[in-house]
């Protein structure tokens, strides 16, 4: 028999925050039974100092809801994001491209699985998330509401859409919600291969025939608008609660600037034309780039009305994609039922 108190905390909750030995903050004092406001304050101190929150921690409802909304939208986007690409698996030009595209689609669905797990732990059942997605109550990223017309679209999506996404995802590897941050580390590693695959597709086409090169330019012309809209309109840093709680680290404009800084030179290198005559780098203003050096990208204001139309499921392919999801969910219902069913004797 062990002493029942041997694993009890040594210090009372209130004495645990400021340790005289300056040791790592090991206490998680907001988990103790305190009045709500006191807990809330201790929670904020921890998060604002860069601390992580784990699933078993107490957290304010507002934080739980904010992380859930963010992760759920991300999970939805991974799940719906494979639909434009899967249409090209059977039409991939070589066996190796078919394998690579299949692997990418498989990876993205895997990311959806990982992210739905993170979201489930926050208290919303997976089936409820699927219900809401199909009912249009939750959203998925704008870029997945458009059709994929040619093989060049597959290159542009894997290269530039994934690149724009990874810029955002890398900034999430330090999210205050621990399970999300760790999941993003795995996801970013896999996404980097998708970008290589996409760039390889584009570069190969750009060394091909005139019509192949024209096909890439045509795809870039169609995708540039949605790409520039993808991170969302400029927002006020001080009013953004996701930033305040360090659920995410960068504003939409910071992400867009970073994307442009890395990818504009790589696009131009291939002899492609970016369909925005106003696009230029202004060295005199702003603080563009990761290094915080002066200068920022100028560009034509993205079509925010289009973004709003598209993400509220009024995009060119929104209905078709959701219908596909609805049908495949019904078609696979028996698998989920079989997993949970009572085992039955088989003769």
């Amino acid at each position, binding site marked *: 028999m062990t002493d029942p108190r041997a694993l009890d905390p040594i210090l009372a909750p209130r004495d645990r925050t400021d340790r005289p030995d300056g040791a790592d903050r090991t206490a998680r004092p907001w988990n103790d039974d305190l009045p709500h406001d006191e807990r809330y304050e201790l929670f904020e101190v921890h998060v604002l100092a860069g*601390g992580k929150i784990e699933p078993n921690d107490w957290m304010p409802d507002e934080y739980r809801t904010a992380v859930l909304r963010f992760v759920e939208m991300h999970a939805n986007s991974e799940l719906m994001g494979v639909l434009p690409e899967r249409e090209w698996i059977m039409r991939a030009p070589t066996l190796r491209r078919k394998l690579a595209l299949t*692997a990418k689609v498989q990876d993205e669905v895997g990311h959806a699985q990982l992210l739905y797990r993170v979201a489930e732990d926050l208290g919303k059942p997976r089936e409820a998330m699927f219900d809401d997605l199909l009912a249009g109550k939750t959203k998925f990223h704008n870029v997945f509401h458009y059709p994929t017309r040619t093989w060049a679209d597959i290159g542009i999506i894997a290269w530039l859409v994934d690149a724009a996404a990874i810029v955002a995802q890398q900034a999430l590897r330090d999210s205050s919600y621990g399970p999300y941050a760790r999941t993003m580390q795995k996801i970013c590693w896999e996404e*980097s*291969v998708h970008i290589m695959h996409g760039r390889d597709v584009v570069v190969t086409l750009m060394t091909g025939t005139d019509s192949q090169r024209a096909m890439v330019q045509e795809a870039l012309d169609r995708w540039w608008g949605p790409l520039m809209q993808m991170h969302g309109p400029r927002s006020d840093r001080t009013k953004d609660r996701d930033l305040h709680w360090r659920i995410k680290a960068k504003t939409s404009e910071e992400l867009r600037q970073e994307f442009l*800084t890395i990818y504009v030179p790589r696009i*131009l*290198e*291939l*002899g492609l034309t970016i369909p925005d005559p106003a696009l230029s780098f202004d060295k005199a203003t702003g603080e563009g780039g990761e*290094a915080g050096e002066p200068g920022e990208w100028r560009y034509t204001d993205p079509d925010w009305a289009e973004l709003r139309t598209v993400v509220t499921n009024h995009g060119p392919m929104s209905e078709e994609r959701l219908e596909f999801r609805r049908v495949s969910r019904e078609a696979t219902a028996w698998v989920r039922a079989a997993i949970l069913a009572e085992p039955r004797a088989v003769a």
Partner: protein
Amino acid sequence: MTENGDRMIDEGGPVAPAADAITGVLEPYEVFRQEKDGDPMRHGGNVMAPDAELALHYAREMFGRRGESIRLWVVRRADIAVLEDLDLLQPPLDRSFKKPGGYVMRDKLAAARERAGTAKPKARE
């Protein structure tokens, strides 16, 4: 006098349970530890214990004595499902398309630049 002082003198009676009365069995428990806030849980080692509660005590002694952990997960080894078949985990097939090294673009990029008449972009930083 002690509480059971009368037992201090060997009177020939049973002072310890007979060997065949020991029913507990020591079992290995695997210990996972988190070193600092936000880190993944990493395998630290294992302890032998007759039950989950003692396993926690031992784990605390072995992996928390110097303040080197902020969280421990202690799991009965028998409860861990293991997969280590390399035919499944590392199939002997060419999967290079799943790895960055599977895409070597240097020559293709140079050809694309030549075709476009562009220069190599300056390296960032």
